[in-house]
């Protein structure tokens, strides 16, 4: 009798964990599949629509220079790639943990200035500078983030909003024009800029995808859903919030470093609201908490801005982009990707029953 029961239980379990079959539902899906790693990584499947989107984008970026030599288009694409990196970085922190960071420009700027220092004072290659920019951003991000992540939602918003502004003000005092000039320009070698942007984009996409789909990402989401319940489950939420902040800062810092190498100068505008705001809206437009959504948002917003730039209605392009954003948020508060994936989930549920 016992054997029978045990056998039945095992079979039920196997039904539930058959490879390839979706194991869980949730705001995202996770399949029991590739590379079972225990502990914090858990099982991460690459057979999801979100990862496909990342892959498709990388392939598109990679193929573009083959299709066109037009430097304007390539420039636009690398701008989209950079904004995509910023939007994804924003999402892994704010979309997943729910702590809205309105000052990602801080990480961007710190990474940029660090790279500027590396570029001006050392003979290290740009790739090292980009990596160091990311590290610097994590370090300074920790100093700022650790105390502010203890605060609840709205307070965190205000602090993150103010910090980059304060930094820009300080730089204006410390440096001439607040800027660092003469960084070894690689803009003449546009090919390098483009390749580097795509490489950073690909790296960010893959790493953030893995993190978001792993158990770490699950804990981030738990923090967003019900932080107290997460604490009551034995999770040290403080450490995880700092982790999210650091991961976010690392990639945003790399984007800043890349930007500085491409432009030859690090200026206080890198800390401005015009750098903090677009990634937030790109993520909201595309769908927060998905990593794929922000990429979509970056393409849509930046793409439409640049598309309109070459049209006659160029003056109204910002207005049109803003209206687009507003209308989408009004009817699809979970963003475009969010809306599509909910629709897909509902269809699948119907099919099952």
């Amino acid at each position, binding site marked *: 009798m016992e054997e029978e029961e045990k056998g039945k239980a095992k079979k039920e379990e196997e039904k539930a964990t058959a490879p390839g079959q979706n194991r869980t539902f949730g705001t995202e899906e996770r399949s029991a599949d590739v590379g079972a790693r225990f502990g914090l990584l858990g099982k991460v499947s690459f057979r999801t629509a979100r990862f496909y989107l990342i892959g498709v984008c990388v392939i598109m970026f990679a193929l573009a220079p083959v299709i066109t030599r037009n430097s304007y288009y390539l420039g636009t694409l690398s701008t989209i790639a950079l904004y995509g990196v910023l939007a994804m970085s924003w999402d892994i922190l704010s979309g997943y943990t729910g702590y809205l960071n309105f000052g990602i420009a801080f990480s961007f700027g710190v990474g940029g200035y660090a790279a500027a220092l590396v570029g001006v004072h050392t003979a290290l290659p740009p790739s090292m500078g980009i990596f160091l920019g990311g590290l610097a951003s994590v370090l300074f991000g920790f100093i700022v983030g650790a105390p502010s992540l203890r605060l609840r939602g709205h307070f965190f918003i205000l602090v993150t909003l103010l910090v980059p502004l304060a930094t820009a003000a300080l730089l204006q005092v410390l440096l001439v024009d607040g800027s660092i000039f003469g960084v070894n320009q690689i803009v003449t070698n546009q090919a390098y800029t483009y390749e580097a942007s795509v490489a950073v984009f690909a790296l960010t996409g893959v790493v953030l995808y893995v993190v978001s789909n792993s158990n770490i990402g699950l804990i981030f989401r738990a923090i967003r859903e019900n932080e107290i319940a997460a604490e009551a489950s*034995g999770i040290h939420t403080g450490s995880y919030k700092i982790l999210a902040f650091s991961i976010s800062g690392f990639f945003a810092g790399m984007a800043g470093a890349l930007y500085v190498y491409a432009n030859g100068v690090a200026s206080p505008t890198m800390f401005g609201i015009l750098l903090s705001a677009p990634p937030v809206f790109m993520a909201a437009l595309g769908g927060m908490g998905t990593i794929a959504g922000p990429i979509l948002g970056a393409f849509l917003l930046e793409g439409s801005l640049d598309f309109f730039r070459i049209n006659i209605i160029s003056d109204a392009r910002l207005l049109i982009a803003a209206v687009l954003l507003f209308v989408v948020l009004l009817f699809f508060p979970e963003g475009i990707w969010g809306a599509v994936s909910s629709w897909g989930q509902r269809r699948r549920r119907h099919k099952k029953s």
Partner: protein
Amino acid sequence: MKEQQQREEEEEEEIQKNVLVELKDVTKRFGGLAAVNAVSFSIARGERVGLIGPNGAGKTTLFNLITGFARPDSGAIFFEGRNITKMSTSDVVNLGIARTFQIVRPFTRISVYENVLIPSLSPNARRASGGKAPDEIAMGALRLTDLIDKMKFKASELTHGELKRLELARAIATKPRLLLLDEPFGGLGSNEIGPATDLIQSLPSLGITLLMIEHRMKELMKNVGRIIAMDQGSLIASGTPEQVVRNERLIEAYLGKRLDRVE
């Protein structure tokens, strides 16, 4: 004489080693009111203790104090000899104390499986299970609470009884040694009480000591070996279920004055 002293000391030590959690003179005030007033008691390993008292007696506050949701104004709380009075919730949980809430608190938009996976990821779960994978721990908890076939559902889609089981599964998944249950039978239908009782009665065999708040006296009596009673923040009785139920002060607390003393 020395031998007797030695023996007494050894006995003390034995008792101490068996004491899992101990409260000494714990007081918590809200404004001018003492929600918990100089409460002292201890619970030994393997015990199943019930906590009763009228509404507002301070039972949930006591749970909050033990699990780090609130800090006592005075007094101390010890767990396995360690002073946990000022510890944060996640630290307390990682020492081996878990609790369920009267009003369930699941992660609503996440699946049942993931709900239970989260506590399985806590450091204590890993340690206490001897290094088992979080996935195994989660599945184990789901099996125990009979939620395997609801694994893929979002928590928002569960019935009340299922949510209560989920609450329990999440607490069990942290691999606690002490489990505080806040009205586990609350809102359960008559067909759900049986399985719930079985489940709760199986917990000590997993090495879990129980402290349970419950209003449904019938269920409580079946499930505990000792009862502690509170009223207006103070401990007013402690003993076997039969003893406590006949306690006069307790009856007064629930019903007001004794019937034969009413003018």
